[in-house]
């Protein structure tokens, strides 16, 4: 019989241990089997065969930060959408909530409309144009 409840989450732990052990073995095997003949050229950063110019730790474009920021905000919107989507059909079927059907629908549409304004603003401002 299939278990139910919180004990069903235990395989996550088991598969994590199995996958991590597997990854560790995969990383360790070449250390044992492969030869190691380090030369200066092999250990330097690769730049299509020319001498490396400058350091890799310079400042990068701020566009990546903006993408991550906008992703975070819309991820939060998605997180609000997920419980609503799961509860919505159950509320539609449940007679105890029959007066709330349109309210449920309308609330989320208002939420999405406000965030659509945000998305339109971001897109119109040209933040995500990468070639400017």
């Amino acid at each position, binding site marked *: 019989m299939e278990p139910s409840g919180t004990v069903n989450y235990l395989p996550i732990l088991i*598969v994590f241990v199995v996958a991590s052990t597997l990854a560790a073995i995969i990383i360790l095997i070449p250390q044992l089997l492969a030869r190691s003949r380090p030369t200066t050229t092999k250990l330097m950063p690769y730049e299509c065969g020319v001498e490396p110019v400058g350091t890799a730790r310079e400042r990068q474009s701020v566009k990546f930060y903006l993408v991550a920021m906008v992703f975070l905000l819309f991820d939060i919107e998605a997180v609000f959408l997920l419980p609503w989507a799961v509860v919505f059909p159950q509320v539609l079927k449940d007679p105890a909530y029959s007066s709330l059907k349109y309210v449920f629908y309308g609330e989320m549409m208002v939420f999405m409309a406000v965030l659509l304004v945000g998305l339109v603003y971001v897109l119109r401002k040209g933040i995500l144009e990468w070639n400017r």
Partner: protein
Amino acid sequence: MTTDILLEWIIKIAVVIGILLTAVAYLVLIERRILGFIQLRVGPNRVGPFGLLQPAADGLKFMFKEDIIPLTANKFLYVLAPTLILVPALMTFIVIPYGDSITIFGRTIPLHVTRFDVGLLYLLALASIGVYGLALAGWSSNNKYSLIGGLRASAQMISYELALGLSIVGVLIQAGSLDLVKIVEAQGGWYGLKWHVFYFQPLGYLVFFIAALAETNRIPFDLPEAEAELVAGYHVEYSSMKFAMFFMAEYANMITSASLGTTLFWGGWMGPGVERWPALSLVYFIVKVAIFLFIFIWIRSTMPRFRYDQLMRFGWKVLLPLALLNIVITATLVLITS
């Protein structure tokens, strides 16, 4: 919690991971053969009959190659990054329902490793964790091109992860549960017309498919890791087995996306005759996943790749609004038909 349930889990996990790793290895071979046939040449067929021992040869090659760690690289993160990509890719397979319950030796065994009520969120969470591996791989190599490639790959991945998550919301509105087993069961009956791809979600599947192509860094979205672009991007400084781990993770993610698409939109293991012979459900599942993997490979051989700004523009300006539109349409339809 009894020991035979624990034993059942361990055996199932061992079988699933074993089959998965073999599938990943042979998927590489199958892809090379299919690409070869589409390009009017024969793929690798020298090693073993029809080239079937090629993955073994590749694996041995990777194991014996010299493992170079650049002198100025951050050693801890350099080794951690491939594991951060591979481990979540392998962990996704415990919640996918591979088939109906079968009865062996008087014991009913459901064909999924485990089942819990937030299965879909578990998969989204693992996809979120996968971003770290890319960014850390780029950073820790201490190579300019690696860093830019890693940042670009992470930015691409998070942009399309949004569209992926939102395309699934349409399915949730219809199925009413986050449990993958329940979602498959909700698609039963009506001779397949109740599969979510027909039953109100064709737009959702389209968005999901394109977002899955971008999440797994497949063509046409594979700019961050293509060999001719940015000196192969975030894995330029990797060699030997760590390099192989990136590709294992990519193909494992491909199989996950195909399985998830099948489960959510194409009826999972449903098909004609599963009530009488439950073992047929496993066959249907594998056939459907194989068809989608073939489509992934077919697209690879046919399309050119997008430039990075085209890619980002497409993800934010087209795909995200389409996913939101799909949610509004589905919610309205469900409200009207209730």
